[in-house]
C-alpha cells in the first residue's frame, strides 16, 4: 500500500527515478568512465590530464571539463557516486546496528541501566554534530575511514532512542509475556519476538538519513578533512572550485563548471532521498490527513 502511494505521488516518483539513476551510475561506473591504463589498480584515483593548476572548460574528451590540478570532473563525479554510496551505506549500516543493539537492550533491561544509557545518549546528542566530527577527524587524522568512524560515533544515538521507544511499548504485549512465561531465554525473546515488530520504523528512518550523511561527509571533505587529494569525492571536487570563483577579467563565469557539476551531483543525490522521505512522512503521518 505504501509502495503504491509512493508511486502515485509525482514528487516521490521523481525521487525514486533519480535514485535509480544514481544506482545505475554507481554500478556501471567502469563502463561509463573507464579507468585509464596507468592506474588501473586504483580506479578511485581521478586521472589528471596535463600540467599546471588552471581548470579547463568542457571539451569533447572531457565532457565536464578539468578542475583545479587538471582532474577530470566527469570521472570524479561518476566514481564519486560510488564513494557517496559507500560512505552512506557503511555509516547507516554500522550506526543502525549499534543503535539497535544498545537501544533495544537498554529498553528490554529497563530500570537504572536504561536511565544511565539514555543520559549517555543525551550527552552525545547535545553536541553539534559537525563540530564533533571535526574534533574526531583532527585527533585521528585525515581520511575517508576516519570520516566514517566520526559519523558512526555520533549517529547511532538517534536510532538507539527511536528503537528504545518502540521496544518499551512492545515489551508489554501479551505475546512477549507468553514467551517469557514459556521460559524462552531473554536473547531469543528480544531477537525473535520483539525486534521483528519494532525494527521497521528504524530502518525507514535510517534509509532516509542517507542524504544527510552524504552531505556531512562531503562537508568534511570540503573542509579538507576527508578523502586524500585526488580520491573521487564530490565534496573535495567542490573544495577545488573555491579558488576559481572569480573567473577571468573578461568572463566572470569562466570556471562555472568547477562548481556546477559536482554541486549538481550532491544536490540531486540528497534531493532524491529527501523526496522519498518527505512522501513517506506524509503517508505515515495520519495527523495531517484530517
Amino acid at each position, binding site marked *: 500500500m505504501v509502495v503504491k502511494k509512493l508511486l502515485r505521488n509525482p*514528487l516521490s516518483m521523481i525521487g525514486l527515478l533519480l535514485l535509480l539513476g544514481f544506482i545505475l551510475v554507481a554500478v556501471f561506473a567502469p563502463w561509463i568512465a573507464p579507468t585509464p591504463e596507468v592506474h588501473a589498480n586504483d580506479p578511485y584515483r581521478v586521472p589528471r590530464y596535463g600540467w599546471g593548476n588552471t581548470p579547463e572548460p568542457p571539451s569533447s574528451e572531457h565532457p565536464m571539463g578539468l578542475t583545479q590540478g587538471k582532474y577530470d570532473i566527469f570521472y570524479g563525479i561518476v566514481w564519486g557516486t560510488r564513494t557517496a554510496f559507500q560512505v552512506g551505506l557503511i555509516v547507516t549500516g554500522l550506526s543502525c546496528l549499534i543503535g539497535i543493539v544498545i537501544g533495544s537492550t537498554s529498553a528490554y533491561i529497563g530500570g537504572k541501566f536504561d536511565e544511565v544509557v539514555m543520559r549517555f545518549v543525551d*550527552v*552525545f546528542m*547535545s*553536541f*553539534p*554534530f*559537525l*563540530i*564533533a566530527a*571535526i*574534533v*574526531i*577527524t*583532527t*585527533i*585521528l*587524522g*585525515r581520511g575517508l575511514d576516519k570520516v566514517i568512524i566520526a559519523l558512526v560515533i555520533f549517529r547511532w544515538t538517534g536510532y538507539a532512542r527511536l528503537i528504545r521507544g518502540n521496544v518499551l511499548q512492545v515489551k508489554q504485549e501479551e505475546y512477549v509475556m507468553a514467551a517469557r512465561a514459556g521460559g524462552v531465554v531473554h536473547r531469543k525473546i528480544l531477537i525473535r519476538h520483539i525486534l521483528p515488530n519494532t525494527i521497521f520504523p528504524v530502518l525507514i528512518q535510517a534509509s532516509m538519513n542517507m*542524504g544527510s550523511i552524504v*552531505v556531512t561527509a*562531503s*562537508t568534511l571533505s*570540503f*573542509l*579538507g*578533512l576527508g578523502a586524500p587529494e585526488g580520491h573521487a569525492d564530490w*565534496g573535495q571536487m*567542490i573544495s577545488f*572550485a*573555491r579558488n576559481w*570563483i*572569480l*573567473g577571468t577579467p573578461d568572463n*566572470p*563565469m569562466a570556471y*562555472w563548471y568547477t*562548481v556546477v557539476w559536482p*554541486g549538481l551531483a*550532491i*544536490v540531486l543525490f*540528497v*534531493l532524491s532521498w*529527501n*523526496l522519498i522521505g*518527505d512522501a513517506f512522512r506524509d503517508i505515515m*503521518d495520519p*495527523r*495531517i490527513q*484530517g
Partner: protein
Amino acid sequence: MITYIARRLLFLPVVLIGVTLMIFVAMSFLTPYQLVSTYIKSPEELKNQSLDDLVRKYGLDQPVHVRYINWMRNLLRGDLGYSASANMPVAEAIARRFPATVELALFAIVPVILGGIWLGTISAKHYNRPLDHFSRVFAIVGWSLPDFVFGLILLMVFYGVLGWFPPGRLSMWADSIVLTGDFTRFTGLNTLDALLNGRPDIFWDSVRHLIAPVMTLAYLWWAYLLRITRSSMLEVMNKDYVRTARAKGLTERVVMNRHVRRNALIPVATVSGSMVLGLLGGVVIVETVFDYKGIGLLTATGAQQLDYTLVLGTTLFYGLLLVLINLVVDVLYAVIDPRVRLE
C-alpha cells in the same frame, strides 16, 4: 517560574561536566607528549625544558582522575594551551575571533526565525493549493542544497559577476581605518563600532560583507522551519477550539494569528534548541566559504592543520556556549508554554 529557572540552573554544572568529560575522553587518544601543547602558555616553555619535564610538570603521567582534575583547574583559569596554527594562546585567539561570529549570528537569527515562520504560515493557509506545493518544493530543494554549495554559488554570482557582496569582514580601505588609533573598538562588532564612531561608510561596508553569509545561513533554516511550522499549523487547524473560534464568527485573520499560530509555535520553540546546534555547525562552513574571520573559520583552519590544541579549545568553548544558549531557550520555552513549568 523562578523555581523552574533555579532547577535549570542547578542542572547546568551536570551538563558542563558531561561536555568536558566527552572532550577529555577524546583527548585520551593523544599521547602525553602530544598533550603538552594543550597545557603550555607560550612556545618559550618548549625551548627551555625537555618534553619529559613538561609531561611531569603538568602531571600528564598521573592517573586519569588526577589528570582530569588538573585539566579542569586549568580550564577554569582560562588556560587552553598554545595554538601553533593561530600563533597565540587558544583563549586569546577565541577572544579575538568571537565578536565576528556574534555579529554574524545576530544578523542571521531574526530573518531566519521570522522568515521561516512566515513561509510556514503561508504554506499551511494554502494547504494543497499551488502556493503550498510551491513552498514545499522550495523547502525540499532548500533542505537538499548543502550550505557550502549554496554559499559558493552566491559568491560566484554576487561577488564574481555582480561585485556586490565581497568575502571577508571588511574591504581593505575600511580595514585600515578600523586598525588605526582614531577608531575605537567598543565591542568588536564592526557594524556597531562603526555607528558609535560615526562612520556610516564603514557600517555600510560591513553590512555588505554580512549579506551573503546571512543568506546562506538563512535559506537552510527557512526550509526547516517552514516544514515544522506548516505541519504543526495543519495539526492545530483541525482542533475543536479553532472550529469554535470560526463558529463564533471571528475573522479568518484573527483565527489564524490568535488561535492557530500561537499554538502552532510551540513545536517551533521545541526545535529551536536543535536549530542552535545546527547554526553553530553552519557557522564553521559559512565562515570558511566566505573567508569570514570568526571562530568557525578559526576551528576549520586549525582542523586542516591537525592543530588539536586549538580544535579542542574551540570545541570546549562551543560546548559552554551551547549550554548557556540552551538554558535561555528553555526559559523562553517556559514563557511561551505554561504547561512546561508545571512538569
